[in-house]
Structures are given as C-alpha cells and as structure tokens.
C-alpha cells in the first residue's frame, strides 16, 4: 500500500513539474518577457535594470532552475499590476471561488445523483425521459448563455436577484446554478447508465431473494457498485472547479480566481497568470488523486494486495 501511494505521489509531482515547465517554455517563446512585463515603451536602461533585477540576464538554463525552485517553494513572484506578492492576491480571491464551487458542486451532487438513480429505476418511462431531457439541457447549454438567461429573467424581469457582485447569499444563487447545472446534468446521465449497468446483475436478484427491501437494494447493493464511474465523473468535474469558474465569474462579476485570471491575462500580468495556471493544474491533479483514493475505498478488487 505504501508503495502504491508513493508512486501516486511521485506521479502527481511529475505532472505538476511538466505543467510548470510547459508554462515556462510558453512564456519564453511568446516574446521577450521583459517587454511583456514592463511594456514595450520602456527605456533601454530601465529594461536592462529590470533584466538584472529579475535574473533575466542569466543563461536560460539557470533561469529555468531558479524558476522551478521558486515554484517549488511557493514563491510566485510579484504582480506587476499592483506590486503585491502573487500568493497574497490569489489567497484573497480563493475563498470566493471555493464558496461558489462547493455550493455549485454540492447542489449538483444532491440533485444529479438521485435524479440519475430515479431515471434508471424508471427506465423508458416518462420520469426517465423528463430527467434525461433536463440532463441534456444541462450539459448542452453553454455556461455564459445560461448565465445571461438567468440574469435576464431573475434580475431584469423579476428583479429579485442581484445580477452581479458578491456578499450575500442572494448573490450566490445564480452563479451557483449556472456552474452547477452542467455537472448535475453530466452526473445524472452517468449515474443513470452506471445504475442500469448494475441493476440487472445477478447479485441484485440474490439480494431480492434474501428479502432485502427495494430501497435498500438500490442504496446498499446497487449504488456502491455503480459508484466507480460516478466518482470518476465527479473527479473530472471537480478538477474543473476553477477552470469552469472563469466564465461564470466573469458573467456575474464574482470576485474569484476565474475573474482574476481573465483580468491578469488582459493586463499581461504574467506572474499572476503563471501562478494561476499552476493552481488550476494542481486542482485537476489533486481531484484525480482523490478519485484514485476513493476507487480503493469503494472497490475491494482495486484495493488489491490481499488476493
């Protein structure tokens, strides 16, 4: 087991290292970073001084090593725009994104999974078709479009919800719905097919032959066996937590990491962009690590070792 987790951990580090290197290469090949960082109209003396100050006069290899070293220590540098450490800026914005993400994903779980189970149990009937119609609607509708529709309806027409900003629970409602709808739809769809896969397995009939009531058969005999694909989808979507928030936060002016990224890109604040790319990659990798861990907990055959 230790060996298993050591390998998983090393792989995680390796993936993050790839991402960091990739970010470095892209930034160095997309033009002179100095010009990008302080602007093309800077004086040659200023440029030279900046170069020395940030070690950009060193050979590329040294720059790379220093850069990787800084990333490993969590030193993401200083934002060009407001001259504050990047890490501070990110930490300031992270809670808003986490709050939005957790509410949206929590709701998606609570709605998507039971809806998928219900659809599977009523396969081919009206309830199934209705749920699947909503699910397709959920993941077919682009986030920005759903967001705009919600603003039109609740803010402009009904005037009961604020169209942008944060601070109260009312502010959270529409962004959370917009972000969660896609995940709820995907989850419902995957839960349904995973449940259909297990519902006619022989052990379900055996459970009925023991006299297990129907609801217990569904919750305790079918669901744990259907959980693997469901958990995979949850993991993939959770990894998108920050990436997915980009559009939603922009539409609703939600002061989170997604909007920070958009602002940083448009103002060419490369230190911030760099750090955020790493943060997004890290959430993706961690979500997948979590999924692997859950696989082992859910299925004794994957836990292995004790064969």
């Amino acid at each position, binding site marked *: 087991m230790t060996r*298993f987790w050591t390998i998983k951990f090393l792989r995680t580090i390796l993936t993050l290292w790839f991402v960091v290197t990739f970010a470095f290469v892209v930034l160095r090949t997309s033009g002179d970073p100095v010009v990008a960082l302080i602007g093309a109209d800077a004086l040659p003396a200023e440029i030279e001084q900046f170069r020395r100050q940030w070690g950009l006069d060193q050979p590329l290899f040294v720059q790379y090593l220093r850069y990787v070293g800084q990333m490993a220590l969590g030193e993401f540098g200083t934002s060009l725009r407001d001259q504050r450490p990047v890490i501070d800026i990110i930490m300031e914005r992270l809670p808003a994104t986490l709050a939005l993400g957790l509410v949206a994903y929590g709701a998606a779980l609570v709605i998507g999974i039971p809806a998928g189970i219900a659809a599977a149990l009523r396969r081919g009937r009206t309830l199934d078709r209705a749920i699947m119609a909503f699910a397709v609607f959920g993941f077919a509708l682009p986030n920005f479009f759903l967001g705009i529709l919600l603003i039109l309806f609740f803010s402009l027409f009904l005037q009961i919800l604020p169209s942008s900003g944060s601070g109260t629970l009312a502010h959270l409602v529409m962004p959370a719905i917009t972000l969660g709808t896609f995940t709820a739809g995907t989850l419902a769809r995957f839960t349904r097919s995973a449940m259909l896969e297990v519902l006619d397995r*022989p052990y379900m*009939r055996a459970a009925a032959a*023991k*006299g297990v*009531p129907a609801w217990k058969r569904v919750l305790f005999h079918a669901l744990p*066996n259907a959980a693997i694909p469901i958990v995979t989808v949850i993991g993939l979507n959770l990894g998108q937590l920050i990436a997915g928030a980009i559009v939603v936060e922009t539409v609703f002016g939600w002061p989170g990491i997604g909007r920070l990224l958009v602002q940083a890109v448009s103002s060419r604040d490369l230190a911030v962009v760099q750090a955020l790319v790493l943060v997004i990659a890290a959430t993706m990798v961690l979500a997948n690590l979590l999924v692997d861990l859950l696989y082992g907990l859910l299925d*004794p055959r994957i836990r292995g070792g*004790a*064969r």
Partner: protein
Amino acid sequence: MTEPLLDIRDLRVPLPPGADRPLAVDGLDLTLEKGEILCIVGETGSGKSLSAFATMGLLPPNLPKPTGEIRFEGRDLLRLSPAERRRLTGRRLAMVFQEPIAVLNPVYRVGEQVAEVFRLHTDMKDAQIRRRVIELFGEVRLPDPEQIVRAYPHQLSGGQCQRVMIATALALDPALLIADEPTTALDVTTQARILKLMLDLRRTHDTGILFITHDFGVVAEIADRVGVMRHGRLVEIGTAEEVLTRPKADYTRELLDAVPRLEPRERRTDFGDVALSARNVSKTFRTRTLFGKLRETRAVDRVDLSISRGETVGLVGESGSGKSTLAQCVIRLERPDEGALSIAGSDFTDLEGATLRTARQRVQIVFQDPYAALDPRQSAGDAVAEGPIIHGVSRRDARARARDLLAAVGLDASAAERFPHEFSGGQRQRICIARALAVEPDLLIADESVSALDVSVQAQILDLLASMQKRLRFGMLFITHDLRVASRICDRITVMRGGRIIEEGPPAELFANPREAYTRELLAAVPGREGHLYTDPARNEST
C-alpha cells in the same frame, strides 16, 4: 392427508407482448413434499427458471403478473402483499443461483452478506450473528470459517462462493430451497461435492428442494422425483426411477437419449499428416502485487502435444488447469516462454507481425459463448466471409463460399443476410464453426464450444463438428471440462492439471484403466455415472 409443502396450481406466467409465445409458463401443476428433492428438467426457454422466479417473487418487473396459485405453508404466495411476501423471502423460502461468483455482491465481505439475512429477518445481536455465520460456514464445509467470513467474493473460488450462497439460503432454516442450476458453472469435482452437500442438508434439515437443471446426470444423482418441462408445460412428472428408466413422453426420451455418456467413440486410425506439434511448451505469468512481491504462475508446464489431420484430441481439466492458456499459446494469442510449436509442419513459435497474421489462418478457434463471439452488427454471411477476404480471397468468391459453408453447417439459404440476434444459441455456434472453417484451417480449436448449449443442441453440434472434420480433414483440439462430451468425440484424451498433461490415452483405455488418482477422481465425479438412464434401443445396436 396433510397439505404438501409447496403446491403450484395452474401457474401461468405471461410474457410481454411481442415475445415468441404468449405464456412462458402455461398451466403448471406440481407439488413438493417436506424433505423431498424435485428436479425440474428442461431446455432453454422451457419456463423452468421463470416458474422458480414466480415462486420466489423474483419475476422481472417488465413481465405481466402471473396467475394461478402457489400455495406454501397454507397461503397463496401470489396473493400476498409485497411486504408480507418479503417477510417470507429469504426466511421460509430461499434460493441459490447459477453463477456463484456473480450472485455475491463484489463490494461486501462474504460474512457480511450472510449476516444481512439475520439483520433483515431477526433481531439478533451482532456478536450472535457473527457466531451463527461462522457456524453456518462450517456447516457448508468452507475451510477456515473464521478467516473466510472476512474475505471478499473475488478472493474465493466458484465452489466456495456457491457454499457461501448456500449458507445464505440456509441461514434461517427455510422450509423450501429453490436451486436454479446451482452446479452448472462449477467443475465436475466441485459439482459432486456441492450435490453431496445438498443431500446432507436435506437429511439434516428436512428441507424441501426444488432443483432446476438441464443435466440428467445431476438428476440421477439427487432427485426423488423429476418433472420435465417444455414450452412452459409439464411434459412428464414421476419418480426419478420411472422418468429416468421408463420415460413415458417422447420428448423425455429424446432428451435422455441426447445426454452424452461415458461411451468412448470407436477407434479410428486413418489420420493424415501432423496438424499440430507442440514440444515442451511452457508459459509462466509474472504479476507484481501491490506490495511489490513477484508472483509466478506456471500456467503451462512443459507440455508435449501432437494432433494429426482428421484426429480429435480432447483436453480435459478443471478451471485453472492451464488448458485455456495452452490453447492461447497454440493460436499465439500468448507467446510461449519455452518450447516449439508447429502447425502443419511449419514453425509457429516465433512468428510476428504480418507473417503471424498470415499464418493464423492455419489455426482457428470456436469459443464457448456463441452470444459474445459474434459481432451483433455483422450479418452471418459477412462474418463467415471476413476471414477469407482478409487472407486475399476476392469478395465474390468469399461470399459464395460463405453461403456454401452456412448451408454445410445446416443453416438455410437466407442465413447469410441475417444478423446474430435472429439466431438461437445453437445456430450461432454453427455460424462460429462456419466462420472458423472458412479459412480452411489445418487445426481447429474448440474451446468449451458446446458447454453453453442444451443437450439436444450439444449433440447436434458435436455431430456437425465430426462430419465437417471428415470432409475437411482438419485436426481438432477439443477443450472441455465434461468427460462425457470428450468421450463422445475424441480419439485421444489428455488430462491436464496444474499446467501439466498428467495422463493421455484413447478414451476406452483411459476410462477402463486410469493410471492417475486425479483421472479417477474426475471419472468418479461425472454425474449420473452410476444411474442407468434410458437409452434408445436403436442406439445400443449401432454402437
């Protein structure tokens, strides 16, 4: 006179509209006494399993409600409310199923799965339940009960899983046990042990057992009375002795006659050149456990085997004996670690890439499950023509040849255009045979090719293989766990165990004087061996 334990009167189980017949079970009447074993025999589609499911209340929800009466302990099961019924299910009536590994839930420990019955139907304390489960595991003779309660299903063998299932069924000492083909998926020696266990349990608990099977050998071993079903109706019912030796119905006679027996086929010697020669073939699997321990399994261990054209060699062994791995080495799905293979005189051991693909037409295989072996989106004609086309025959010729072959395996002219779902299991196996023979192989491997088929169909497919062999003169490696089937078709039988061939010889000699203890054990485990089943007089004269 007291009421029988189970009294089924005029049971009708309707099928959904659009099925091939309106009633799956059509007016079934039967009774079962306490402590009696009643075997229900029938082929696929006879309605025997649905009768059992109706009794247990396990009919699939898409079927219309059954009618008639199923009287059990003074009540009509069909008229109980779902809640009343559930209180009986698992407690007074219990059931064991065909696929022992698949009926256990893979995510729970087996002890927990037995304990569930006590939790549902009694208010026993956890510690008490634990003790009872361990006792039960001892009673069904699972080794080391204290350890096994903590095992997961995938850690146990098929036989052990079936014992767990039997323990579950017997947990609350039910009056009626329904067993639906409980030994069909098991090895013969395991089957013999499970049958003995059921006989013991009947004696000690006085349980009435409704035993569903397609195997008359099994019937001869355990039945007190036998009912034969066909197309949802009871064709014949009587004591085991009557039905097995003096059957009244023609259908029963046909079924009994199709049962393969341990009767060696007559000796043939007119074989051709060598089709397969395997020398000293070994295959070891190395797997690393999660702890990094290296585990080696020597699946095939220095095997020598040779088959001539026109000859059929049986490869008999239980699961895990290495017979399938050997077959995979022969068709080079696996590469042997050591040894040399040659097919029709040319080396087959080290071929790779394009040369291997070309050489593959010389050896073909027919698998066990005709449902999984055909692409559902490919017509029968295309399936048969595909191989020759790949190996360079023109489309026109391949199609024409496919039609000839489909006719030769006994399918009608329209078969080429039809898709697999339009055929029965036996017909699909015919398509698989035509497909294998289309590329004119020197060697045909039949890997349990008749095991999944009904006895009457089984007999037809065996005859088909023999007649095609006479015509096309291929060598055949016939892999089976069933000595009765092997005896009927094989010129030579090799017995495999632990990756090695431990005994080899013509069936007549092998059955008369088995040298190895294991061969004797296999022979002794063949069900229905002692019983004297009815045989068609005409058949006796011809042999």
